[in-house]
Each structure stands twice: as C-alpha cells, then as structure tokens.
C-alpha cells in the first residue's frame, strides 16, 4: 500500500453525542446491581431475617423481661435488623470483589478509566438502596414488634417519644455505614473470601473479643473500633455510652474517610 493511497482514506470520526458522566456511572452501577441474582437473594434474606427475627423475639419475650425503657423495646424489635447488616455487608463486598474475581472490572474501568467514579457511584447507589430498604424494614419491624408486645410495659413506645424516631433512623444509618465500610474493604482487598473474613473478624468479632483482654487501654479503645462507633446513634437514651451522639457520627465519618481514602489511593495506583 502506498502512502498516497493511505492518505486518500477519509478520517473516521466517532459519534460525538456520547459522554462519560457521573450520572451515567450511577445508572450503570444501578443496572449492574439489579442484574445479578445474588442481589435479590441476599436482600430477600436480609428482609426475611430482620422481620422474622424481630417478630420471633418480640412474640416470645417473657413478661418479666418485658420491662425497661424504649431501648429495651427497640433492642427486641431490631435484633434481626442489626444482624442483617451482615447480609448487607457481604452484598456490598461482593458488588466490588465480584468485579475483580470475574474480570468484569476490566470492562468497567475501560469505560471509566479515571476509576474513582466507579468507587463513588458504587458506594452511592448501594448506600441509597440500603437506606431505602432499611428505612422500610426498621419501621415495619417496629410496628410489628409493638403490636406483639402490646399489653406489656414496653408495648406502648410511641414514635413521638423523645429519641425514639432518632434512634430508629440511627439503626438505618448504622446499617448504611456498615454497608459502605464493607464496599471500601472489598475495594482494598479485591478478594471475596478475604474481604468477608476481614469484615466478620475485624469489624464484627474482634471488638467483642477485645473486651475480654486484661489490658485497660484495649477496653478504652474498643468503643472507637470501626464496628462499634455507630452503637450510640441507635440508642434512645445515650447517657450511658462512652461516645456522645456527636462523637459517634464523627467517628463514623473518620472511619469512612480512612477506608475510602485508602481504597481510592490503591484504586488509582494499582494495575487492574
């Protein structure tokens, strides 16, 4: 082929109307989330578990244990909700480690080569889905539990009572926080089993085990562990907790900034 023949060919110009946008990335993550069967299965488990366990426990509280304040009532009602955070965390982890284990991350990051948009949009979309779902679950479980406890001392908690509504949204915020933390862990470790192991071991179990250790500084540090900092916001009466409400929010923010800062730096620097 001669040089002349080559220059004769018209230059191709690709379609001009398409742009990579953050809104586009959000829509893409939304599509990806709901196009996997595992999303539906795990979220269904979370719903059944939160509602079922809340109902089961509330229906079986012996009369002598149905005493105390609104925190006791919420504690019985939300037992399932709290444990459901594991489902949500696992799903959050899989939403990102699944991309690495299957290789779809290469497609994702070829379409969005600046990379960080992928992380933010994944976190935003999943966080929003969890927030909506658990707002519904927390309220549904609350009313169901109150109906089952009616007639007992803790069966007449009202949403209007001081701190109750705030504590209920506190439960929602706690679950969203744990879900976001899980996504960051997945982004850092990139491996499903490793990330789930880390979440269960370090976020859930370690702070519990640490209280058994003899050293005082450990028990001083335990309330500040990433898995413990949201505890205060889910309480109606916060006077007994180490962290105040404000500190609780602050520490949740600190841990998210640390986790996402690390995830973002690694995402930018590592090869895919």
């Amino acid at each position, binding site marked *: *082929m001669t040089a002349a023949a080559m220059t004769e*060919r018209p230059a191709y110009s690709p379609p001009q109307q*398409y742009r*990579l*946008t953050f809104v*586009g990335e959000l829509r893409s993550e939304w599509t990806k989330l709901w*196009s996997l069967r595992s999303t539906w299965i795990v979220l269904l488990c979370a719903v059944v578990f939160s509602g079922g366990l809340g109902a089961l426990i509330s229906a079986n509280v012996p009369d002598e244990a149905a005493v105390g304040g609104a925190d006791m009532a919420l504690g019985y009602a939300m037992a399932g909700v709290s444990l459901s955070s594991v489902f949500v965390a696992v799903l959050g982890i899989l939403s990102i480690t699944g991309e690495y284990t299957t290789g779809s991350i290469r497609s994702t990051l*070829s*379409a969005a*080569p600046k990379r960080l948009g992928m992380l933010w949009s994944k976190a935003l979309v999943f966080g929003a889905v969890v927030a909506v779902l658990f707002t519904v679950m927390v309220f549904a479980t609350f009313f169901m539990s109150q109906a089952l406890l009616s007639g007992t001392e803790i069966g007449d908690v009202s949403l209007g009572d001081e701190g109750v509504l705030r504590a209920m949204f506190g439960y929602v915020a706690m679950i969203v926080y744990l879900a976001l933390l899980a996504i960051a862990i997945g982004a850092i470790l990139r491996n499903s089993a490793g990330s789930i192991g880390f979440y269960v071991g370090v976020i859930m179990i370690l702070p519990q085990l640490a209280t058994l250790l003899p050293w005082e500084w450990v028990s001083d540090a335990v309330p500040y562990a990433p898995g413990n900092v949201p505890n205060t916001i889910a309480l109606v009466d916060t006077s007994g907790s180490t962290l105040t409400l404000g500190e609780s929010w602050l520490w949740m923010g600190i841990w998210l900034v640390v986790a996402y800062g690390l995830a973002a730096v690694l995402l930018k620097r590592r090869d895919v």
Partner: protein
Amino acid sequence: MIEIEHLTKRYGKKTAVDDLTFAVKPGVVTGFLGPNGAGKSTTMRAIVGLDAPTAGLARVNGKHYSEFRSPLTEVGALLEAKSVHAGRSAYKHLLALARTHGIPTRRVHEVIDLVGLHEVAGKRVGGFSLGMGQRLGIAVALLGDPAVLILDEPVNGLDPDGVKWIRLLLKGLAAEGRTVFLSSHLMSELAQTAEHLIVIGQGRLLADTTVDDFVSGNGKSRVRVVSPDAARLAEHLAGPGITIASPERGVLDVSGTEAAVVGQTAAAHGLVLHELRTDRGSLEDAFMQLTADAVEYRQTTEGVK
C-alpha cells in the same frame, strides 16, 4: 492512531515489555504478532490504561486513554482475559457499559445483532461457550462505534464462519478510516487480515513492516516437482545456487530457481512431469525464524509418543 513510546512494563523482576516503540496508523488493519508471553496483552492493557507503564507511554490520538471525555467512542477493546461477570446476561453487561456514556439501548441491540448473539442475549454469560464469550467481547468493543479498535486474539474460539466474518468486519472498519490493531500468534491468520505487522518477542520490537514486505523478505519459495524421471531431472537442474531435495521417490523440492525454468528443462530433455507447483515459503516458518531467539516458553516433544 496509537503511539507506543519507549514502553516498559515490569511485574516485579519480570520484564513483560521492554522499551517498545511503534505506531499503529488508521485506515489499515495492523497485526500484532509474537510468541506466548511476548508482551502483546500487556501492551494492549497499557493502551487502555488498565496497567500503568513502568516507563514510557502509550497514547491514542495524542492523548492518554484516561483523558478522553468519552473513552468508549475513542477506543473499543477486546481484552484477552474474561471481562464479564458470569452471573450477568450479555444484554445487561452491554447495557451497564452503555449507560456510563448515555449510549441508547438501540445501539446495544444493534451490536448484539451484529455479533450474532440475539438468541442468547438474555442468558447468563457463565453458560456461554468460548466463541459466544468472544462475540460478546467484540460487541463490547464495537459498542461506542469507536475510532480505534484494540482486539487481543479476537479469532480465539471462533468457528470458521466466525473467523471469516471477523476478518471482513475488521477490514471494513479499517476501510472507514479507523485504527484496527489485533494480536495473534498465528502469522497465517494475520496475513489474511492485516496489511501492516508489528512483531515482538520477549517484550522487544522485532519487526515493524507491511505484510507484503514481511512475506517476500522472509518467506523462501521452492518448486515442487513430481515426475517419474525425477532422478534425471535433478541431474539436469543441478547448478550453482540451486538446492534440490527429494522428500520421497519421484518428488523433488527445488529452491533457487523458478517453476518456469524447471518446466523448460524438463521439456528440453523430454521428461514427463505429473505435477509442478511453486510453494511459497510458509509464513509460520518465517515468523518462527524471526522469533527463534525470543521464544519464552519452548516445549519439548520428548516423552510424547
């Protein structure tokens, strides 16, 4: 236009790409050839920004890939390794990618039809055959109707029909003025598709040439003669610069001359010929000769019976 300038990529101590410099021009299909482990896939991943170069750079139309405002319309890539979530359907995979750029669902259906995945678009990719997965990868590459196509072993797993189809498709895309860059280890495959060739071995550039030049420069030709008078013919043909081999009784492989000369010699001496043809030197041979020193994973046939 793809420009690779002094690209070096090391994984730990292993140098996958070593100071590689070349350019891929629009308008023609350019083949990227090299034995296993030569660094083809690594170079291609560097172009789309998935692997960061240790040194040097890879640019597309003057820009680093991540600088594009619409990467999918600039470059379409089919990478070697699987790049799809096994639990997602082909349609949803394409849709999710299209959404990032605001590409309409109409275009998603278009590329699905184009690669012939219409029937299975709603099925989970995990159950796809190698060829179907490859077709999906090609659909992804074409999604943004891009100016540059980078395809890592696109014919891998395709049936003969599919191979023919993609050959025509790529030539057509190049004829529209796009840049088409595809890798292969099969010289014969590339010779039918590509006009230009980049050959690498152990991460280093071995050749940057047109296919025609490569073939005439490296492919030796020989004349095969089948004749009941082979022995006598051989005597008459013998001369300086001519080598004659007889792989079997009545058959001669003559190199250093042309079929016309062999025919004339036979006629002049009244010798009967049953067959007379020119064998162009095998491209694979030429390729293997060029990369002989750069083959990384050499197999042995000892112990295989």
